[in-house]
């Protein structure tokens, strides 16, 4: 069993500091995942202390082992998540199955949306890119990262709506506040936007961990409240579920791996909450789409807009 870590080159305007992780077994099968460079020492330590000598088919048990070890050492869940994604890839390849079927799903259904950054695109460029996404990739859903200024958010949302909506198909709009504001501030901004536009969800409408803020925004606005990226499967989600603080659950492979994502999706199903899948290099999250009872959509990893966390597909 071998662990190969490759540093991916940074690209101007694109994601930086990313690694490709590859787990290989003696039979030549391998599984691939991606992680930020900061996770490298932890990935190597977990490999040494938890995975070496283990039967790598024991994916669920190994996930519990590596997440526990990682938490004991005071780290976030990125290293265990990267190893879990690679372990699932390896397990599927050993069984000579596509990953989506190894996970138990059917053919992935491509209900995806694109995320548009807060800055760096004027309205003309934004309109052009949205038209391309709509025409070439059938994108009908767009998530905008909220900027500093409410007025420019409204004009960008309107630009997206007119460009894609102008093609004659319904469009859904989401707005991501990335935890940068207080809940009260978000309530005011969303109320103002909702005077003229309909939002499907607002994401991360309060500081990370402030589930009380999420809950109050959910009670104040018409849009659904979507959980942030970056939550782990072990402990982060409980308060959000228990306080009914989110209307949409976001699964993030980069912090949950496939194993954690499957578990949180089951809990979301118990709470009757739809799940969305955060973007991940290679659009690996798509593999989950056919397994989840309340699958909503998956965030499309749009290289041209270079918007999301995660590395690039080699």
């Amino acid at each position, binding site marked *: 069993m071998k662990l190969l870590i490759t540093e991916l080159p940074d690209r101007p305007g694109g994601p930086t500091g990313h690694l490709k992780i590859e787990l290989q077994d003696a039979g030549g099968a391998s599984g691939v995942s991606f992680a930020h460079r900061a996770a490298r020492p932890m990935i190597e330590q977990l490999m040494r202390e938890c995975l070496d000598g*283990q*039967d790598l*088919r*024991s*994916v*669920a*048990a*190994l*996930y*519990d082992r590596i997440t526990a070890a990682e938490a004991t050492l005071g780290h976030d869940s990125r290293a265990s998540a990267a190893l879990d994604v690679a372990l699932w890839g390896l397990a599927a390849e050993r*069984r000579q*199955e596509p990953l989506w*079927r*190894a*996970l*138990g*799903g*059917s053919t992935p259904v491509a209900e995806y949306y694109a995320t548009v950054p807060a800055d760096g695109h004027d309205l003309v460029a934004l309109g052009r890119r949205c038209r391309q996404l709509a025409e070439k990739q059938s994108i009908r859903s767009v998530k905008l990262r909220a900027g500093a200024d409410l007025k420019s958010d409204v004009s960008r949302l309107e630009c997206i709506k007119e460009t894609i909506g102008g093609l004659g198909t319904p469009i859904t709009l989401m707005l991501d506040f990335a935890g940068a504001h207080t809940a009260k501030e978000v309530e005011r901004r969303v109320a103002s936007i909702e005077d003229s536009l309909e939002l499907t969800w607002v994401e991360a409408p309060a500081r990370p961990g402030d589930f009380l803020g999420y809950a109050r925004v959910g009670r104040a606005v018409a849009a659904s409240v979507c959980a942030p990226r970056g939550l782990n499967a072990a402990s982060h*989600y*409980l308060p959000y*579920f*228990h306080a009914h603080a989110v209307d949409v659950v976001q699964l993030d492979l980069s912090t949950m791996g496939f*194993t954690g994502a*499957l*578990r*949180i999706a*089951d*809990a979301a*199903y*118990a*709470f009757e909450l739809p799940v969305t899948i955060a973007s991940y290099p290679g659009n690996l999250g798509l593999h989950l789409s*056919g*397994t*989840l*009872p309340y699958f909503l959509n998956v965030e499309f990893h749009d290289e041209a807009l270079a918007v999301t966390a995660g590395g690039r597909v080699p």
Partner: protein
Amino acid sequence: MRITGYRCESYLMRMDRLIGDANLPEGVDLMPGSVLFLETDANLTGISLGYGGEFPAWMFEAVEGRDPREVLSLWGRLNDLLHKGGNRGTATLFLSLLDMALWDLKAKAAGEPLWRLLGAREGRVPAYASGLDYPLSDEALFSFYQRMAARGIHAGKLKVGLDPEADLRRLEIMYEALATSGKTPQLMIDANEYWSAKEAVRQIRRLEEKFDLTWVEEPARRWDYDGLRLVSQQVRAAVATGENLQSVADLYPLVSEQAVDVINISTNHSGVTGCRQIAHLAHLYSIPVTMNNAQANYMAHVAAALPNHWMMEVVDPGREHCLRFDNRVEDGCILLGDSPGFGIEVDRAKLEALQRSPPTGQGRFPFPRGEGAGRRVTAPPRGKLPWR
């Protein structure tokens, strides 16, 4: 791989001894059984075990021609089909049966035992003994738990509820028998929803004056989250429940209302998929799950791979006469072998013999609720049961 056909064989079995609880203390030794054979074009047959009844053809048609390895997706499809009438009652039994056969096939297609396919590290599940012992005499009770202790099991669950004095005496007997394992016995009791919540509090407190109880099972009705929570708050033991619920949707109110400390999952909880859903919800809330007994202990495969599984119920009334299976109870654990899938094979000749000449004995279908349950504790008349 495509699903091409099915056969569901029903039969009646006579167990080697009586089993019963507070609802039917004289017990039964007859039990309906069924085996679902799910055929594929890959020369693999999925096998799952149920409780009789005619498998609905429309449910098979929903998966016909589909790939069984896509079981999570097929579960969603089946559950959607049950929308209007609901995933409950006999519909759940058949959904469970079909889902388990699909998982059996998925593991067989990979050439792996199901515990491995599900990602467990080892095919080893801690066990507790459960006599389903209301019809047993004091001597038979001792010998059951002693037999289990000889296999390294030190935890046991006693059926209680009708006779406070006898419950105390029989707990002592179970304790003594389990102590022969050489370990400190761990005691559980099961009232099978016979008590009201307040009755449960009184009864349990009296038992707790003498015994340390790990959990009390079904001390109030299955859906009564206020009652279950009340019991949990007023006694020391954990409240376990869930076996008569059928899906994660049923368990949701108990979990979100913080009314349950231990969740029982079983073959009737919407299949392997349903058990996983419940366990994953419970895991979020740090609630352990325990697998109910199953013919041939086959659900240990599922338990082995759950992150929050505690211990699985083992009984030995003899329900496997027409089955061969690849597991054994040893060192206090169910040890699963490496045969693909659930590792169950059916002895066709024995099954056909049971179908040709159904055994006679003591049976009650369906299993009823006891006289006086929820209102008053009615001890059986003296002389009616071997222990009274």
